[in-house]
């Protein structure tokens, strides 16, 4: 095979020195080693990602409809998709709904940003100091498994029924995952790369900037993704438990719908909560894949 390539490269008229020819032969070898590009077309990729999702949605709707048709509950207690989606549509067209979404998302963003700040500081410190690691390492993992709703009684005592109470629980829910992602990333920086960095003279801040942080980025993003899931759950629990004055949030809408026995509205809000959670999770998924692809971690 290699002979074919070299002769093909020899074909153009000889102009350069023998060195040039060697260069060209090497280029031929390298081209062989690299092989052809295997970039699948975007359309094809989107389709192969989209159809299982679409199928899952169809199956879920069918199951829901089947339960309704079975006559297990009266239709006003458990309405079917055909009664619910018009209600969802009306909701989406109302300004009250969007105000609620805006408030909830504002809390989510603030809470998540604070979680990142806390997670990075705690994770950074713990990954740095062995004493802190021994003291807090397993505590952080323990916090991760603690159901965030268990924090609410304390949060309400500390902060009354306020935004702070909700944020407190969101941060406690999300920050441990983010901290753990960072700690794991720092821990699993490949030792051979650390040695290479040392030979280059990377030390202190430079070591972090050029080696440890980029090396731990994939693990950190995985931590963010998990942290988001916890933040979103904690936020929804908080909005159901901590209802502040006349504010309108998705949680408030949800509990009002329950009080009014408006099941179709309730299910609409649940669908919205689910969709927002999935969308943001997908966003992190995209980020995660982009980084893993860049780092060459994709198989």
């Amino acid at each position: 095979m290699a002979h074919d390539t070299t002769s093909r490269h020899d074909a153009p008229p000889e102009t350069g020195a023998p060195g040039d020819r060697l260069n060209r032969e090497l280029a031929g070898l390298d081209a062989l080693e690299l092989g052809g590009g295997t970039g699948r077309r975007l359309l094809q990729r989107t389709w192969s990602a989209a159809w299982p999702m679409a199928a899952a949605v169809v199956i879920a709707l069918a199951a829901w409809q089947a339960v309704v048709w079975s006559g297990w509950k009266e239709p006003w207690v458990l309405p079917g998709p055909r009664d619910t989606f018009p209600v969802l549509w009306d909701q989406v067209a109302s300004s009250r709904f969007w105000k609620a979404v805006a408030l909830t998302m504002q809390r989510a963003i603030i809470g998540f940003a604070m979680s990142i700040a806390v997670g990075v500081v705690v994770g950074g410190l713990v990954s740095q100091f062995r004493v802190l690691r021994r003291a807090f390492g397993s505590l952080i993992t323990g916090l991760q498994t603690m159901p965030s709703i268990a924090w609410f009684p304390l949060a309400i005592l500390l902060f009354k029924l306020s935004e702070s109470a909700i944020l407190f629980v969101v941060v406690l829910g999300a920050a441990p995952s983010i901290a753990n992602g960072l700690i794991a990333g720092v821990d699993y920086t490949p030792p051979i790369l650390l040695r290479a960095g040392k030979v280059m003279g990377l030390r202190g801040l430079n070591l972090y900037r050029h080696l440890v942080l980029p090396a731990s980025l994939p693990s950190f993003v995985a931590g963010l993704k998990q942290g988001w899931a916890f933040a979103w759950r904690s936020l929804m629990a908080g909005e159901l438990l901590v209802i502040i004055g006349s504010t309108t949030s998705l949680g408030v809408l949800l509990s009002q719908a329950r009080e009014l026995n408006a099941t179709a509205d309730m299910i609409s809000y649940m669908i919205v909560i689910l969709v927002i959670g999935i969308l943001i999770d997908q966003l992190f998924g995209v980020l995660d894949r982009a980084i893993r692809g860049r780092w060459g971690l994709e198989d």
Partner: protein
Amino acid sequence: MTEAVTAAPSRTAAAVRLRGVSKAFGSAKTRLLALDQVSLDVAPGEFVCLLGASGCGKSTLLNLVAGLDKVSAGTIDDGGARVALMFQEPALFPWLTVTANIELALKMRGVPRPDRRPRAAELLDSVHLAGFAKKRPHQLSGGMRQRVALARALALTVDDTDATQGTVLLMDEPFGALDAMTRDLLHDEIERVWRDRGLTVLFVTHNVREAVRLGDRVVLLSSRPGRVVEEFPVPMDRPRRIDSPEVASLAATITDRLREEVGRHGA
């Protein structure tokens, strides 16, 4: 008195001086003596090839000289020289492009920003990878990654004043993953860089002919524990050809000695 006088010049005569260097791994129970009482002088500007069977402690030795590990006993004196090490694995940063990997090494050697890109391009050209600057390491083959690692190691021998004289370049089986043709080309290249920049090179290899092709001196190590068995000066003029009869004949002698050494373990 006389001792001090004779010792003084020989101190400056070695770029790297190992005296009774031992290295043991593991705890008291699982103790493994990788290197035992290795003494070796490498003169400034000398090209020394280290030869030995797999597992005899060659990488360990280079790591010690590079200051990545601590000796268990003995001393290593490099007179504060700048040391560059090319690992047995490419050890490139996967998040950086090929050129950025090299530019980072240049940055750490104090090369000002505007000069880095062109210097990196020159280095890549010298390992015949000019067209791959924008690729990421995982997009290259193993042999190509090794060549990038070589370019990066060469970048570490550079500094802003270009006073590379006195840099010690340690190379750990740099060409193990390469096909013969590429390897021959890089032999020429490494020899050129060594001569032009006045580097001191300590080059580890399994390949006896490669050692004879490149070295001023070939140092044979025994296995378990690693000791210096014998040193072979290489008298042939440069440039040598790896397939020349002179290289082949000295290589045959050294191979016999190596076989004898390995055979002692079978007995």
